[in-house]
């Protein structure tokens, strides 16, 4: 049977959305994901759509058990997500959603780094739109931070890919040798940034709660889980990931205690949950990898359900803080019930999906005889139930009555939540079908007596602790500073340091101004002249530009063999030139100052962007 790339439906299908409206549009929005589901479920393993490019193979369709299972869940999720968003009038959001889902599936089936990188970048830009689309000042600012962080991640990834290509001559996407080379680490950084591994995680908790109600549901599902997929594919058995993953499982839990914003609390729990998957990848045994993959599968569904539940509350009440919500179970009992199914699933209650997937990672830690990993992950499980299953629903739906009497959300939202809830229970009760599509053979039975009673004991006594310490856990109207502080406030600290001495010598300011102004003009003209004259500045400007604009030019460059060489050369030249500049900075020559002025200009621009 011939193969067809499912992303084609979504990516090209997105451009038909502006021309449709009303019922036709709604039917179209549901039909396309349904088509994608069908395409992926009918696929058989193999390698398809191979093209020759620069003497390298470009593979769009690498279909094996690993890519298929992610394909299944992404396609199911696209149908659920779009159903949840059906009432949205803003066609831009639907288009962004389609591009986002299409590129995520594109990453999943990519067989080489070029294809992967292109889809990776479409993903970043399409998802950023879902943040911008809320059109409030805070959302737009968060969207800019989101996109800048992802550009940084993309540059690391691209750098790694190019270095690897120079080193090995291969673009094939597969397990990477643990050679501790720069390429290894750059690709790893690019991937774990998208997996939201602290301290590279703040983009997630910063932007997701600012996205539109429906956009956040898509975001919760795709970016971090494609990152888990690429990590499983490329970095199984990377020891550092065990510890990063364990740390992030607890990190998210700690911040969730402090958080007052409903969706930001859930976002911190994405960090925590992805921690289990990253740990599984780090351990790298068949059981651990199965655990990571099945947990990603289950996680996409219950996390989306939780985001849909919290989103429905925000949509109907207009409030997002726990301190402003409470007592709405009276008028939103359906939303509450559906949310709780997600809550039980993420907490890994027996008969819910989290139980059959999370326990596989924890059991893998036991088999590997890693007592600390096992204990810390179990502790994080307790924290998961504490927040997502107890704190959030308690203060959102019960707690003190806020007097809000919001109605149930639109039917399409409830249907979408119902679909996710159905799967959460279905997978929990019948794990067989999920286990049969995992990449490796499963020798694991979650429903043993001691496992069930142990898990129940852990969960019920967490609940006891929660009710005993209810007073201490009361949400507070605060925000928590996190790693995003460095790019939100850090630039201001820099400015303060720069301003302080100037303010102290106020009397000299006029003089300094004259001195600098005249100097500046002189230097600028000198600089402009030297741009055309000096190879060094020229090289830097070109290289910096080609790296930062790499994303756009990259796509274009694919068609030109010679320029790719140029890009590689430029990249190498950048480092040679950079070394040259570092050496020359001692000579006092004007062109060197010009370089630092450029740098200063960059800092100033970022100050205005982030203030």
């Amino acid at each position: 049977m011939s193969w067809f790339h499912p992303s084609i439906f979504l990516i090209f299908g997105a451009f038909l959305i502006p021309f449709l409206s009303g019922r036709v549009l709604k039917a179209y929005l549901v039909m396309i994901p349904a088509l994608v589901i069908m395409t992926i479920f009918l696929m058989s393993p193999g390698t398809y759509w191979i093209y020759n490019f620069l003497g390298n193979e470009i593979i769009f369709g690498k279909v094996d058990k690993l890519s298929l299972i992610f394909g299944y869940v992404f396609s199911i999720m696209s149908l659920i997500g779009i159903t949840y968003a059906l009432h949205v009038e803003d066609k831009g959001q639907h288009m962004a959603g389609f591009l986002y889902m299409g590129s995520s599936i594109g990453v999943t089936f990519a067989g080489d780094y070029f294809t992967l990188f292109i889809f990776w970048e479409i993903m970043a830009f399409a998802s950023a739109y879902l943040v911008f689309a809320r059109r409030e000042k805070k959302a737009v600012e968060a969207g800019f931070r989101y996109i800048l962080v992802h550009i940084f991640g993309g540059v690391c990834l691209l750098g790694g890919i190019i270095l690897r290509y120079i080193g090995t001559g291969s673009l094939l996407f597969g397990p990477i040798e643990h050679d501790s080379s720069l390429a290894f680490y750059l690709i790893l950084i690019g991937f774990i940034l998208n997996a939201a591994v602290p301290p590279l995680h703040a983009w997630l908790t910063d932007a997701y709660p600012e996205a539109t109600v429906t956009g956040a549901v898509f975001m919760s599902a795709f970016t971090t889980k494609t990152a888990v997929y690429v990590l499983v594919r490329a970095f199984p058995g990377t020891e550092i990931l065990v510890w990063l993953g364990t740390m992030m499982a607890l990190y998210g839990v700690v911040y969730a205690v402090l958080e007052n914003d409903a969706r930001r609390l859930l976002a911190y729990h994405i960090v925590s949950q992805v921690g289990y998957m990253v740990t599984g990848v780090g351990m790298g045994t068949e059981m651990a990898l199965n655990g990571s993959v099945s947990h990603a599968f289950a996680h996409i569904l219950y996390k989306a359900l939780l985001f849909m539940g919290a989103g429905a509350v925000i949509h109907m009440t207009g409030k997002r803080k726990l301190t402003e919500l409470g007592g709405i179970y009276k008028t939103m009992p359906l939303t509450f019930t559906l949310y709780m199914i997600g809550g039980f699933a993420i907490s890994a209650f027996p008969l819910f999906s989290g139980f059959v997937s999370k326990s596989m990672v924890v059991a893998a830690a036991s088999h590997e005889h890693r007592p600390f990993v096992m204990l810390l992950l179990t502790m994080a499980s307790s924290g998961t139930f504490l927040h997502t299953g107890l704190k959030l629903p308690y203060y959102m739906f019960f707690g003190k009555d806020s007097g809000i009497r919001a109605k149930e959300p639109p039917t399409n939202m409830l249907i979408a939540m119902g679909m996710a809830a159905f799967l959460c229970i279905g997978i929990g009760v019948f794990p067989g079908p999920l286990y049969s599509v995992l990449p490796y053979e499963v020798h694991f039975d979650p429903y043993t007596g001691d496992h069930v009673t142990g898990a129940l004991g852990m969960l019920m006594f967490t609940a006891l602790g929660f009710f005993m310490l209810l007073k201490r856990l009361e949400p507070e109207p605060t925000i928590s500073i996190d790693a995003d502080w460095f790019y939100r406030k850090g630039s201001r600290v820099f400015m303060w340091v720069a301003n302080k001495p100037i303010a102290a010598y106020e009397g000299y300011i006029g003089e300094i101004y004259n001195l600098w102004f005249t100097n500046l003009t002189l230097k600028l003209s000198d600089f402009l002249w030297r741009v055309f004259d000096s190879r060094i500045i020229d090289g830097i400007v070109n290289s910096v530009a080609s790296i930062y604009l790499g994303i756009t030019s990259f796509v274009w460059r694919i068609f030109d063999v010679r320029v790719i060489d140029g890009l590689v050369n430029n990249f190498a030249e950048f480092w040679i030139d950079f070394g040259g500049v570092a050496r020359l900075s001692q000579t006092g020559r004007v062109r060197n100052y010009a370089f630092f002025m450029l740098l200063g200009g960059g800092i100033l621009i970022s100050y205005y962007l982030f203030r």
Partner: protein
Amino acid sequence: MIKRFIDFIDNAENIKKTRKLFYIILILVIFSDFFVHREHAAFFWDKIPGWGALYGFISCVLIIIVSKFIGHQGGVMKDENYYDK
């Protein structure tokens, strides 16, 4: 069914009943943990009946106290307008 559910929760007396039920469940869970078959015990604590319950409770209390300590004493929690200032 939904209406019954809401009425049930609205009634203060039922809250007491629910609490009792909760305590009964706690006891049952601990009790049952003594009688299950433990075949794959990787660590010594896997053999202790009621270990899960104890560890869950300790974890929960630790998480709340340590996190709130970090939040308040560690200066992580800030005023809501912190970034706007």
